[in-house]
């Protein structure tokens, strides 16, 4: 029930903001998003961390003890509003509800006209995102997954900068097409369920997971590519990433933060929650292909960042590169890789979100994002420079800060997956040390482009755009409001960097259950011979299971 409350609070907030006068809109929005954050924290308290793998907060029918849906929506198709969260969903919901108030606070001075519409759609977006992470029913997941498009489309179209219309349309169409194909894949799995249970349809994730295992390898391959079509666009993986830099440069600050902080995680969460459990055989077989794509993404996007002049586009491409690590960890099919990639989702949300806040604050003062026009701001804005360098170091993956934990574990997971023949630390898996070696060079590229940015924007001789005049309301350096936006993120970066073990403990159970099927499938395949160099997978026997 609490999860339903978590979704309804932002919606109610949107309604109230919609009806309130334009002047108070931002304060009411702040109140409601903080209320949502409080509710999320309260839910975290109620969450039984002793067994994080179990789906909690969803009503159980007393007899059979399995989960009953909250409210049947389309009984004939077995669609119902059933919510539930394990620790992974819990953490992602906390991330969403944390970024909510910060976004509202961050855009007090940024948004001046049509303020009410901005906050209405921001709250609707937050509700949709919470819905995605809390959904236990596949169609409810899909409904919220799709519905995040509309608010984002409005935010970019109304409040973006120069060619925002093109960016908004491209963002919407790109993701919409991908998710349409993903819907076909998901419905196929539901249909497989109905053939087993003679016609009774169900879209509940647990049921479909059992049904999916009976699919033959060819079916699983088709479903894998269908689901990937939808989720890869959202992540974004290498070939389908071109919408992200455009959307980021055109989105308002709050839009960018939520887009980078949470919306990209829908893709990786989708892969984590649906691709790994539903199509284990296909994942085990094509894991090396997905790994190669994400590694290309890491290096390709990394090098592109190095030649960017627009700061926001640089950070956008860096998100493409960073999330390559996240997906790499997922397809490593072992505990360290899986937990690493989930940690990465949360850490990337915090550090890149904060980076976008900093860039937004600079943009508010200098109204330019190009590194040619503005530079060496440390002289003018020391506090801002501290935060900028701090979050750059977090996203470069400096040990002691949060970026490192996710990145290192993803790389270690990739290294040890498939290295069972080497030593005790290795595990069965499709990837191998060569993948990790190439991916690790991404750390160097990350250092190159992020320090290039910091070197141009923060350090170096002071350079300000000629038409620059002091901003009427904002002081040269950060004011109290802006610091209260960045401070919690900074503290979290340090806390998650220095003391992540309780979180890792909580992630063990859900990651284990999710990758169990895929890991077992990949271990049945011939172990990847270490010295063969390339990860060529020889299939012992076909996973053909007749339906």
């Amino acid at each position, binding site marked *: 029930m609490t999860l339903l409350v978590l979704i309804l609070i932002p919606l109610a907030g949107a309604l109230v903001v919609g009806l309130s006068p334009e002047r108070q809109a931002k304060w009411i929005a702040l109140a409601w998003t903080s209320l949502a954050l409080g509710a999320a924290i309260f839910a975290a308290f109620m969450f039984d961390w002793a067994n994080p793998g179990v789906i909690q907060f969803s009503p159980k029918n007393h007899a059979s003890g399995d989960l009953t849906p909250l409210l049947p929506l389309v009984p004939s198709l077995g669609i119902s509003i059933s919510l539930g969260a394990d620790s992974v969903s819990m953490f992602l919901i*906390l991330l969403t509800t944390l970024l909510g108030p910060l976004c509202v606070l961050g855009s007090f001075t940024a948004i001046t006209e049509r303020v009410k519409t901005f906050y209405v759609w921001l709250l609707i977006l937050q509700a949709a995102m919470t819905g995605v992470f809390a959904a236990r029913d596949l169609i409810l997941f899909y409904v919220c997954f799709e519905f995040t498009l509309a608010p984002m489309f409005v935010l970019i179209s109304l409040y973006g900068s120069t060619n925002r219309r093109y960016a908004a349309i491209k963002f919407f169409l790109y993701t919409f097409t991908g998710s349409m194909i993903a819907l076909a894949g998901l419905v196929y799995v539901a249909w497989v369920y109905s053939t087993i249970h003679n016609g009774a349809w169900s879209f509940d994730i647990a049921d479909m997971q059992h049904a999916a295992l009976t699919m033959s390898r060819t079916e699983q391959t088709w479903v894998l590519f269908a689901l990937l079509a939808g989720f890869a666009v959202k992540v974004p993986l290498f070939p389908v990433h*071109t919408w992200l830099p455009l959307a980021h440069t055109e989105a308002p600050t709050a839009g960018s933060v939520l887009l980078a902080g949470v919306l990209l995680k829908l893709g990786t969460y989708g892969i984590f929650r649906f691709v790994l459990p539903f199509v284990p055989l296909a994942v085990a077989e094509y894991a090396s292909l997905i790994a190669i794509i994400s590694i290309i993404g890491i290096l390709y996007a990394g090098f*592109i960042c190095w*030649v960017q002049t627009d700061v926001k586009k640089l950070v956008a491409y860096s998100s493409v590169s960073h999330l390559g690590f996240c997906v790499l960890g997922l397809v490593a099919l072992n505990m360290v890789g899986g937990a690493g990639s989930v940690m990465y989702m949360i850490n990337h949300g915090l550090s890149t979100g904060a980076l976008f806040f900093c860039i937004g604050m600079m943009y508010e003062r200098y109204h330019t994002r190009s590194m040619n026009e503005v530079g060496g701001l440390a002289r003018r804005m020391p506090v801002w420079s501290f935060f900028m360098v701090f979050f750059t170091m977090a996203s470069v993956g400096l040990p002691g800060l949060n970026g490192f934990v996710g990145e290192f574990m993803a790389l270690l997971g990739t290294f040890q997956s498939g290295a069972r023949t080497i030593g005790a630390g290795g595990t069965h898996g499709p990837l191998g040390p060569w993948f990790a070696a190439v991916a*690790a060079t991404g750390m*160097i590229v990350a250092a190159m482009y992020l320090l290039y940015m910091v070197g141009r924007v923060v350090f170096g001789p002071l350079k300000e755009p000629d038409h620059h005049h002091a901003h009427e309301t904002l002081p040269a350096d950060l004011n109290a409001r802006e610091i209260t936006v960045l401070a919690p993120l900074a503290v979290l970066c340090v806390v998650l960097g220095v003391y992540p073990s309780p979180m890792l403990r909580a992630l063990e159970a859900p990651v284990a259950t999710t990758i169990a099927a895929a890991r077992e499938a990949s271990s049945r395949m011939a172990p990847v011979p270490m010295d063969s160099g390339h990860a060529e997978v020889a299939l012992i026997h076909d996973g053909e299971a007749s339906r």
Partner: protein
Amino acid sequence: MISVMQTIPATLASHAPAAAGAAHAPTAPGDSSAIWLILIPLLPLVSSILCGIYRAWGVTSKLPGYTTVLALAVSFIVTLTGYLSFGGAGVQIVHGFQWLNISWGEAHGQSLTANFSLYIDSLTWLWMLFVTGLATLIALYSTEYMSEDQKNGGYARYFSFFSLFVFAMSCLVMGDNLLLLYLGWEGVGLCSYLLIGYYYTKPAAVAAAKKAFIVNRIGDLGLALGMMLAFVEFGSLEFSEIFARVAEIQATVAAGGHVSWQIEAIPLLLMVGAFGKSAQLPLYVWLPDAMEGPTPVSALIHAATMVTAGVYLIARFLPLFALNPTSLAIVAWVGGLTALLAATIGMSQFDIKRVMAYSTVSQLGYMFLGLGVLTATGAAYHVFTHAFFKATLFLSCGAVMHGFAGQLDLRKLSGLRKLKGWGIVTLAMLVGCLCLAGFPFTSGFFSKDMILAEAFVTQGPGYQALGILALITAGMTAYYSFRVFFRVFCGPVEFHPSDDHHGDSEEEHEAHEDAEGHHGFHPHAPGWAINLVLMVLIVGSLAAAIPYFVDKENHGWVGGLVHDSTAGHLVLPTVAHGAEDAAHGAEAVAHGEGFWSDPHKWMYYVSGTIGFIGIGLAWLIHMTRRTEAATAPIADGLKNAMRPVSTWCERKWYVDEFYDIIFRYPLKILSHLFYLLDQLLVDGLVNFAGAVPRMLGRSLRPSQNGLLQSYAVGMGGGVAVILFIVWILL
């Protein structure tokens, strides 16, 4: 999110941290872990945070300086007492808190645990003593040196980064597992980035800082991969577990077993990390540019502590390196060649800080040579002595720079010896140069001698040739160190202040200078803090020779420390090379009597004479018939004589340009290509896919031309076609 952190530990306390201090560590486990040893890394961290807060409050007094000096001094005292009370064969495992642990099974390799805990054995004591000691001295030195920046807030920022550096260095040295070592490793990389880029308004400093961080990152990549391979191979990152496994492997090797190539790969990868951090041949380019930072930074980081991290890493994992003799050979040869190359470049530089930088690279080359030829004691002792005399040299250069408004070119300074108030600086410079040159009975002489001797003793691929090369380099070192001394401190008194003063406080300084005009400029002699530190360092450099005589049987006090630590027990796989299979490291049995047969004996005399020759040459070339600072007739004559070689040396063998051509420019072009590809091909494909429906639409549009009959034709035609198809399909 924060509250979640509090709730989770409450319910998760049940997961006890992995058993620390595993029973089968090579040496007997220390008694109960002394929790107060945690203070050593903690105090610098606290002072770093405090200085950060001072900066936020805009403190302009010397308070940050004094807080840092106090914190580091207490930390040094704790180290000293810790050493005195525990210093022995034992290994202390002091457990801090759980940093990173996740487990996916009960078996040996199925859990990744990395805690904030300390692994303290004698090697750690050695390192921590001179790290905290020198850090305190240099911090005191910088309180005065950095005084000009108090007003613009740079002062607090400097000391915050300074103490953060010491924290990172102590994590590196005292870390209980490879991950904490990696944290320290990247932490010192970060601090060197921040400190080199301290004068961030100067583009050269920013570029140098970026270069340092990225080159270090390349080294860190090797370390990271080595760490991962170690985890996969040994099932854990903790030193106690790793050394236990290594002990088992040593047992099999001793019994003639064969070492798998994965284990042999680990030292090769760790070596790359060491070369990156300690500025060895392929990755040394960042150290000379690091001189852009303030001089105390160069003294502490780029001479005494950070650059020795690489040496510490190899010393710590020497048993692992010993399993793969080729890795040791590579270390030796890389060390030797770096020493030679750096010495040749050092001879032709005019900026005295650059000379000192290249001499550091060269001396580090010696240390790696020492490790390569299995004399961990020699290497460690050279690290110890080098830390002192190099710090002295740098700080005296700093005093000169401080006094002459940033002037560092030896062609613009001469005869400082005779100026009032510069006595201590001259003495410090003299002692430093003597130790560096390896003048007999100085600390440098003994430590370098042990390394040179070992080069001739240990059997290894071409080690004799390497020894001779090292001797030639020793000669060059003597030459260039005294070249600087004679040109700057001796000869006719003459000085020209440089125009660009370091740091961003140019405004006040210009006013100060033009008022005085060229000749009216009188250098301001160093204050009490600088002189005090220099005096202590002079005593320290000279005293560094004493440990050689203490505890004679295992090569001095330092040898004793090294022997008790993990670096002490070496087992060489017999298969690799040479008939002589005795574990060489410890005993160094002199296999023949006679004077010439025992390198240790004749090395004293040979290296001593080479030192003299070097100094004599320097006197001859740079002192005789030199009337003014700018030109030294013989030196200039010699330089023109070997025109191509000298210019190559001066241009640092064009290594930087070579790297640019091989790496930077191609990568730049590649990334521009990628960006173009991204916009045209990848985006183009997407836009094309978007345009297909539009094109299809445009082609179908004429079908709707508004004419009634054309619609009828369309309909009739459609019906006919469909009927025809159905008719065929039937």
